């Protein structure tokens, strides 16, 4: 119960600040896209949370592919860093501050959430998880 309360207040605080840090128009559109989806599946949806997004980014999961238990395997623990794929290719930073191109293209976001959620979590991410993730990256 305590945890739920904590989460709830956290998401209320961060959702208001997320609007402030959301930079280009494309990013806000993308967040709105996920917010609408989240509301449609959960009427109690009360905004995205950077904390939940950070947890998603940093947690180890066991449901996905064995080589990629967490986002940080490829993206490193600091989202402002350049990451590296398992095949040796550089990955541009995930943090919006280090890479303003991020989170401005819905098609691209959907493609990579699709692949990488299945890789790391072994399932599709929910719209709320995607919004949380982006919200966290906008604070980085």
């Amino acid at each position, binding site marked *: 119960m305590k945890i739920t309360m904590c989460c709830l207040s956290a998401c209320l605080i961060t959702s208001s600040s997320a609007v402030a840090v959301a930079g280009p128009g494309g990013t806000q559109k993308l967040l709105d896209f996920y917010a609408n989806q989240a509301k449609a599946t959960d009427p109690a949806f009360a905004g995205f949370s950077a904390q939940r997004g950070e947890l998603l980014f940093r947690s180890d999961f066991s449901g996905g592919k064995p080589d*990629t238990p967490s986002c940080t395997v490829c993206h490193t623990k600091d989202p402002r860093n350049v990451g590296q794929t*398992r*095949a040796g*290719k550089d990955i541009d930073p995930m943090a919006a501050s280090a890479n303003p191109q991020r989170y401005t293209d819905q098609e691209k976001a959907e493609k990579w959430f699709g*692949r990488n959620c*299945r890789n790391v979590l072994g399932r599709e991410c929910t719209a709320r998880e995607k919004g949380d993730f982006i919200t966290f990256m906008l604070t980085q």
Partner: protein
Amino acid sequence: MVFALLAVLALNVTTGVIVLGGVDKQGPLAFAVSYETGRTVRTIHQAFAYVLLAMVGGHLAGVIHESFRSDAKLVLAMFTGEKPDTPVAIAANPARARPAFAGLTVLLLLGGAAYGAVAFSSRRALGVPVGPLDSTYVKECGSCHMAYPPSLAPSSRWIALMAGLADHFGEDASLESNLMSSIRAYLINNSAEKWDTRPSHELAESNPGDPLRLTATPFWTRTHRLIPSAVFRSKAVGAKGACDACHSDGLTGRFDPQKIEIPARALQ
């Protein structure tokens, strides 16, 4: 003996140029010789290389023996053209030296040969992929790993790879179905069978234990066996599959032996 030596030397040069053209797609005959021919001639080239080595050995042994036997300064004679103790009977009819004529002849021969070599070498090599890779392919497949030139795998391997994108070497690399079919068609239309490079022939043989992986093929393993695994793990290279980290022409599928340079940072 000397003429036989020169003949074998000429044969070695000729077969060598054929091998270079056919196998590595370099040099004046790259436009004309197939990989298959290059490989066949390579056997002859190797055999004659040993013959040549034996003849060189015999020649040197002969020179040494003769030097001790007759006290003639044979090596010096190569430069002066004179053997002071040559019997008069053989030394008859001394030819008049015509350095200008000789120089002009040499210049014409060498110049003609050089011009021919350059002109032939600049012709398009037989069966070597040209031009950049398909931009959609590079965008979709080149985000996670180097966009492997389609010439690096036979169509059967591309078909199998494209059928298993949901578990692509341990990762989900699913593509939207229209994109998947167009990329699949591009790969099949440009697969190894369509080209005549060394990688397109040699990489076609799979490793039965890991049939889809380029870096598990017998050819790849054999040609990279001397490179320490730390090089592949280094930040500058990243992984075994990052061909273009060392092969500067890797993205074209050509893989010239001269275009290989392991980044200095990868060796530290």
